[in-house]
């Protein structure tokens, strides 16, 4: 999958291994979860409102400063994580789907 973010500098950092929806990927120590995910793919999650028209579809965050709450992802245990403020850690297992019941789709 295409990476959304592009690393420009400070790439000489030790690798960190994690899984995103069960797929093993590599990030760098010191990455936020957002950077770890968006250098390995082009989105963080799907919108609950994606079925509406116009669709906001897949989400990739917006503010990077803990204000917009657009970058929520989930740990394997179901804990909600804000990807822009959560440091990546070795062995993390991340889900881009809310593990529990999803909202009713009334569209």
């Amino acid at each position, binding site marked *: 999958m295409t990476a959304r973010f592009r690393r*420009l*500098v400070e790439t000489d950092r030790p690798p960190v291994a994690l899984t995103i929806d069960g797929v093993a990927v590599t990030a760098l120590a010191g990455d936020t979860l957002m*950077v770890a995910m968006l250098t390995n793919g082009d989105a963080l999650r799907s919108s609950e409102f994606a079925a509406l028209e116009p669709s*906001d579809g897949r989400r990739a965050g917006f503010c990077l400063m*803990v204000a917009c709450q657009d970058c929520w992802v989930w740990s394997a245990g179901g804990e909600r994580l804000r990807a822009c403020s959560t440091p990546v850690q070795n062995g993390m297992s991340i889900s881009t789907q809310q593990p529990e019941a999803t909202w009713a789709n009334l569209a």
Partner: protein
Amino acid sequence: MGQSRVIIVGAGPAGVRAAAAVVRAGLRPIVIDEGARAGGQIYRRPPENFTRSHEELYGTEAERARAIHEDFAAIADGIDYRPETLVWNVADGHVWTARDGETQAIPYDALIVCSGASDRVAPIKGWQAAGCYSLGGAQIALKAQGCAIGHQVIFLGSGPLLYLAAAQYVKAGAQVAAVLDTSPFWLRVKAAPKLAAMPGLLWQGVKLLGDLKRAGVPVLTGVTPVEIEGDPQTGVSGVRVRHKGAVRHFTGDAVAMGWHVKPEAQIADLARATFAFDPATRQWLPQTDADGRAGNALYLGGDGARVLGARSAEVTGELAAMAALADLGLSVDMDRRRWLLAEKANYARFAKGLSQAFPWPHELVAAIPDEAIVCRCEAVTAATLRASVSTAHAQEANRAKSFSRVGMGRCQGRYCGHASAEIIAAARSVTLEKTGRLRGQAPVKPIPVALKRNDI
């Protein structure tokens, strides 16, 4: 009764200067920082294993950034520093914090809020597409993580940060497809006398423009955004704008958008600051006296009170702390205060020039097409918002929010509030002031339901 209890919210330039002043007065303040390391957003530091120097990270502001970081480190033993801690409410003389699944109610005698600012964004048709980021966010990606937000980045908006962030991207080796400024160039010329209040900063701005042009980046002023093109699955693919009567298209996979910043005034609101409408910048601002007193043992400093920039934040943060100390019966240096007030006045003059040179594009916002999304949290369109005014007879911002849910999503109106007020005012043909302002609500950011109370 022991020592006076002072709480400082924020550890950017204003919070750090406030903390230093309180420590100098012999008190031990609690400093609550949502970030992991002091510096705020402007002097935000990468994680500890990053190696870029202050010069590489902060350019012309390297010395100021270093001073903020070092001065904060120097007072570490004199303060109770609480990083990665959210203030989610202020009520009955207590600040409510959240960290690691626990919440505390902390009493105070003086509360100094230096909560900083966030991007002021105008909704553009298509801005919900993945790959569209706030301008501040684009800068944070580079500063704190060494990344560009995309492989070909389009900068759209107005204000000095538009040029600064774009020039920083170019310098770091990113591809910048275009810089698209909604403000016409002649407004800059007209504002020049006020901008001359800070000749150094004015010169920096001129130099940035030169850097961009030398790098071959198209810089267009006076554009009218038409659409951010993209796909719900794959995200941003380009931007269309009108410029000098023609439609121009720029290809890119990322957009950095912003029109200056605006105060993060939610905590001040919960602490019962009064707000007044500022016609010059078309927004409601918390009211303080010249020193930063907002009443009820509340003091405001930095851009969280009024956006005057990072340099001014150091001045107003210290002033707010001195006001708090004086009200607690401690002596303050009146010569120092006079000097700080004069500095603040100069920054205010410069900020006024900036708001005239790079205005908030309120006519564009009021005229956005019905099908454009206003609320990025819940994909609510301008049509739905306008219907809440016309069909449901919502007379002001909070009513329209109830009917349309614009302002009720996870960002709690941070990124739609200013725009929705413009749209409501236009739909009702009334002044912006008459639409009122979205009330602050606790919690100011989402917190887990399962927070455990643990007062110390």
